[in-house]
């Protein structure tokens, strides 16, 4: 087994578990930060350096900061967090989630390509140049469509956040 991949996977999974089991949302955010960082390390280990940098920049540097911002803005107190579910419910949820995960992973593990060792990354793989080249040639259309999707989402949140409904002046 590849030690780097094993350690990153272990840390990432453990941090993700901690994230979903913490009661305090700020602690969940801190564990999510660790999960994100281990995903970035996994990208680095797979020679996807550009993806790793962008992952840290966008997910930990911007999105998670916004999460933390909102959590702090609400600053929920202990009695506002609601009751915890009873233990059997939580155990059943965990079992159900694990079963679903296993169901999704099983076909991947069953494919013969999975067992074969990965071919070495070609020269320049994952660099800024190669990713940029792919985005603007082979994947140009999906790439541009995603930006449309993001704009739609942005307008959606703008409309939802308006104090008065659209059409009613002033």
């Amino acid at each position, binding site marked *: 087994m590849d030690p780097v991949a094993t350690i990153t996977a272990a840390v990432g999974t453990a941090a993700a578990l901690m994230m979903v089991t913490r009661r305090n949302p*700020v602690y969940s955010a*801190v564990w999510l*930060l660790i999960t994100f960082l281990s995903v970035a390390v996994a990208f680095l280990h797979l020679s996807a350096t550009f993806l790793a940098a962008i992952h*840290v920049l966008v997910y930990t540097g911007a999105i998670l*900061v916004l999460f*933390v911002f909102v959590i*702090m803005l609400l600053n929920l107190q202990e009695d506002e967090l609601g009751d915890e579910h009873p233990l059997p419910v939580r155990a059943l949820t965990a079992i159900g989630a694990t079963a679903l995960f296993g169901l999704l992973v099983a076909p991947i593990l069953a494919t013969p390509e999975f067992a074969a060792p990965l071919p070495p990354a070609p020269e320049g793989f994952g660099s*800024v140049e190669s990713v940029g080249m792919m985005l603007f040639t082979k994947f140009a259309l999906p790439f541009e469509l995603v930006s449309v999707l993001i704009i739609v989402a942005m307008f959606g949140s703008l409309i939802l956040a308006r104090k008065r409904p659209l059409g009613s002046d002033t």
Partner: protein
Amino acid sequence: MTPWLWLAAKIGFAFAYLVGAVPVLIMMERRISAFIQGRQGPNRVGPMGSLQPLADIIKFLTKEFVVPLRADRWLFVLSPLLVFVPPMLGFAVVPFGNQYGDELLQIANLDIGVLFSMSVLSLGVYGITLGGWASNNKYSLLGSLRASAQLISYELSLGLTILLAVMIAGTVDPVRIVQWQIEHGWNLFGGGSLWRLPLGLMGGLLMFICALAENNRLPFDLAECEAELVGGYHTEYSSMSFAMFFMGEYIAMVVMSGLITTLYLGGWHFPGITDPTDHSWVGALLSIGVFTAKVYVLLFTYVWVRWTLPRFKYNQLMDLGWKVFLPIALFNLAAMAIVGVILEG
């Protein structure tokens, strides 16, 4: 020397360079502020008051470290470290000198280059936000909220101005960006093309202003803002834990100045002083000297701005970030793309 020894030596040098800058900056801050305000400034401890930083350090070390009763102990202790470490990592890709023999004077030559610095520096905000939240103090929390909103807002413009320099030089590798500027001229002046001159000037200036905001320096220090928030996010911190915040801010300033120097001010090269082909130890030392001089000119400007300009109001800060700087940075980038095509075609 073996590669590992080289790496250790360079990391040691960079650590000393960054931490060693803190007492110098404390002294600069005190003397320049005194000069600007027509005061004497510290002049009792040592010759010309030069041992004042040492006295500060002794004071910090001997004070008691207090964790407030209802604070979140873990995060309260962890946060100063989170402020301290990311800027240090960001220095890893900054070339602080030319070559010595075959060895680049840069800790790590990554193929993502400046993107690494950008992404690592963006982690610095966690120390500030979590520290303020963990203190369990209204003022600290307000400071934290302001810090996180401010850093997200200005990081966009900062990233776009970094990209502008990358576009001018056509590479993300800081060593090659410096090389490009040696051949063509500083990116601040458009890299030797009149077409790019206004864009380069605008980009460099904007990057410096956004760096002020990223480092929580006046006129953007809304996160501490003594007049409204006592001390902002570090209100509850004392002794060395406060000193860590303090040092983290100064180190972030040095690293940011190093980045601006590399991206816009020609890095370690100055015509007539350094010779890019000179790989002897004299040439290496000279290049480190030039880099240091440029960094300290920027640091002087940081201090100068701090004691000259008043603080913004929070709404002004947000307006400036989103409605002025971001459009300018975007326009700059688009214009650069067009100019680039014209120049190539």
